[in-house]
């Protein structure tokens, strides 16, 4: 018995091995590059030859007005996305779950699921066509005698636009997890509730939602891990200098610093800064999740 169990464990370790190797090669080894953040990196001299300048890059980053603005933008956009990407798919899944006609249900699911597979490059041109000066929205505004508006150049709505289109693109896909969780709820609970004389609303409130609680918290915690990733692809394809003030996020900013301006050290410093803040946020959210929802991954 004992020996058998040992074998099973070895098995598991063997299965984990490729993953560990991958992790080491592509995630651990490149971390050495972080030292660039503390150097005046010179490609000719390499990591070992470049001059050390300590925290100079970080000091300069903090001096820039941009960095604060960019961090605020990132936080607003990504927390908006996290909240709405939880709520909307949840509501959608609950509603769809009430549909009894199976084929219709599948059809709806398939249709809302599709945009997930279209890349942001293409999606962005669709969005621009809809919100453009002569796009669908402005045409409709025209029917009511309203002047056309330049939505894509309006910093006051850019964030909403980014969050909204992201939710539109992904809510069908995100709902899949909820739908899966819904099917795993024991039907006996519903039967018992029905016998107790509950209506549909009450059953949703007292049976479905408590059963989904751990899934919601899990997705929330996973989402927090990405809080400083507000979506490079999307923002990069939608923004322009007019909406930098509300739309420029850490990733697009680092991209411009590093790759278009060849400031490798500064971009690395910004990237490292982002990672450190992310780490702190994940830790906090993890503790909170344990405290309020009694949920632990490890």
């Amino acid at each position, binding site marked *: 018995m004992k020996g058998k169990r040992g074998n099973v464990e070895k098995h598991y370790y063997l299965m984990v091995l490729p993953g560990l190797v991958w992790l080491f090669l592509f995630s651990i080894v490149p971390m050495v590059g972080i030292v660039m953040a503390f150097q005046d*990196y*010179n*490609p*000719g*001299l*390499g990591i070992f030859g470049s001059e050390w300048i300590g925290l100079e890059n970080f000091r*300069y980053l903090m001096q*820039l*007005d*941009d960095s604060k603005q960019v961090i605020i933008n990132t936080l607003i956009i990504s927390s908006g996305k996290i909240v709405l990407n939880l709520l909307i798919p949840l509501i959608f899944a609950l509603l769809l779950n009430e549909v009894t006609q199976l*084929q*219709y249900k599948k*059809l709806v699911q*398939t*249709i809302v699921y*599709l945009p997930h597979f*279209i890349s942001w*490059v*293409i*999606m962005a*041109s*669709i969005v*621009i*066509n809809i919100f*453009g*000066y*002569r796009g669908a929205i402005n045409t409709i505004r025209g029917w009511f005698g309203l002047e*056309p508006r*330049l939505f*894509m*150049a309006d*910093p006051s709505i850019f964030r909403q636009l980014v969050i909204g289109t992201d939710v539109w693109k992904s809510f069908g896909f995100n709902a899949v997890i909820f739908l899966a969780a819904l099917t795993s709820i024991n039907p006996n609970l519903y039967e018992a509730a029905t016998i107790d004389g509950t209506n549909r609303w009450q059953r949703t409130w007292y049976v479905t939602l408590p059963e989904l609680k751990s899934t919601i918290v899990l997705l929330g915690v996973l989402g927090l891990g990405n809080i400083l990733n507000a979506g490079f692809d999307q923002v990069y394809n939608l923004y*322009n*200098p*007019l909406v*930098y*003030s509300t739309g420029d996020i850490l990733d697009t900013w680092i991209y*411009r*610093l*590093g*790759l*278009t*301006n*060849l*400031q*490798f050290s*500064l971009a690395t410093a910004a990237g490292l800064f982002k990672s450190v803040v992310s780490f702190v946020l994940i830790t906090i959210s993890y503790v909170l999740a344990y405290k309020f929802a009694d949920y632990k991954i490890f």
Partner: protein
Amino acid sequence: MIKKLIAVVLVCMLALVSVACSSGSKTPSSDANENTSSNNESESTPSENGSSEGESSGEPAFMKFPKPVDVHIGMSVSPVDKTLPPGDSAQDNQYTRYLRENFNINVIVDWTAAEGENYNQKVSLAIASGDLPDGLVVNDRTYMVRAAKSGLLYDITDLFEKYASKQVKDIMASTQGRAMENASYNGRMVSLPNITVDTDGIYVMMIRKDWLDKLNLPVPKTLSDIEKTAKAFIENKMAGDNTIGIIGPDKNGHPYSTFLLSSNNRFGFDPVFQAMDAYPGYWLDDGTGKVVYGTLTENTKKTLELLARWYKEGIIDPELGTRDSSAEVVNANQAGIFFGPWWSIGYGNGDSFKNDPNANWQAYPVYSDDGKWNVRMKTVGTSYTLISKKASEDVAKAIIIMNNVLVRDEGIFDTSVAIGWYPLRNVMAPADECEYEYRELWKILRGQADPEDYNIPGNPYKLIYADAKAIRNVVKPADLNNEVLNIQDFDKSDFGKFQRFYSLLIGNRPYATITPDKKVYSVTYNQTETMERKWANLQKLEDETILKIILGQEPISSFDKFVEKWKAQGGDEITAEVQAEYDKKK
């Protein structure tokens, strides 16, 4: 039934996706075409005799290596180019075979990337990792300086002296040493520069002459004329309800060219600024030897006020700065006026002629109120062939020879395979090539010269012979005494040739026939030490402010706040550095 329904829905979805795809890919493809045409005037040179080796294979500039030399390169490729015959590749095509057979140069393509942003990223990463292929063309001086500073480049000072052909040296000399200075770092030559025609940086007004004729309007000369004309275009709905008076930059464009991007800025407002004697984005001598940044000047502010008013009154494209592509609007013939360099009509708006055969686009300078034509001058060229320090001496020689061959033989290659496939292609053209061609082509049209007169081996004006032979088939002027050609004078059946001659004879006409009253050079076309760190931030501030003022999102008074901020965030420091460099040069 349901299955059918699903099928229908899926088909609709697919259709939607494919429509989106095609509209998405339209921009890069049209841009790609224009990019190549912008720095390449030989797209459509027909095939002539196969090769011209032999006469000079003895001299070092065209020597054949005794043993094959492998040259590893990185290459930018056009994702939409379909001219490579089946079986050929970036590494194995008529150009690489030509090099292998005649010079024993074996080109090996280490990596390729799509031209534009993609390629620049790859170059940036190659420099960051210190891992350059033997040869690489970069599109921005910043890359060259960065690589040189990092000690990644081969010092070709002596090799160039020995192995560059006379033709190449003549072209270099035609820039009065500016090309050599441009290609050097710390006084040593570390790259082969690209030398483009001066007129790539001369911005003129492109206007629909047929619309003017319909409305019985004269050609506008000053800014107030342009204002009235654009209004008339819109009020008379020349292109229907959506007529755009003046089309401006799209979301990837720039309102004006700068000292770092001094040429080929299409759809910017450069002529408007110039007519107000304003030169934003350039470093200027204020007349007393003191350096100022042109964007901060009072004249720039006044021009911005004017542009903001134009925008408010609907004269400028309402979607300024947010459009995916301004070129699409021009090609759909919805706009009456735009600004750009010589090639932006002809090469730049080919589809516009296909959509409306009578679109009689013409190019004119924009004059200041007191009748002066001010122009800003560009830097020598913006791309560079880098040779890695790790390359062997033979490889460095081979790259210099490849450049000689390109300059000598560009006119005779069979360019039905796009010349962009030539490995390490970096154009070298005499600065006045377009004006020269303009003059000589008119001589041929008038019968004062014969195409065979231009059959001169080693002529630095390498494309003239092929052009001279073709022009009479394409251009048939109704009036030989009047140099103003109209669209009706052109035969469009060879569309590539048509585009070339339209650009040369109409787009380049202003600069070829009128002497500017004032030529403005930037004090520097390069970055200083502090700029490397702080320019991105300042540029962002500038882009944001300028666009917001033009679009009326911020009042003109915010300009003064911008000036203060710009100075405080490193601008003053940078100005001092530019001043110091300027003083050293004097």
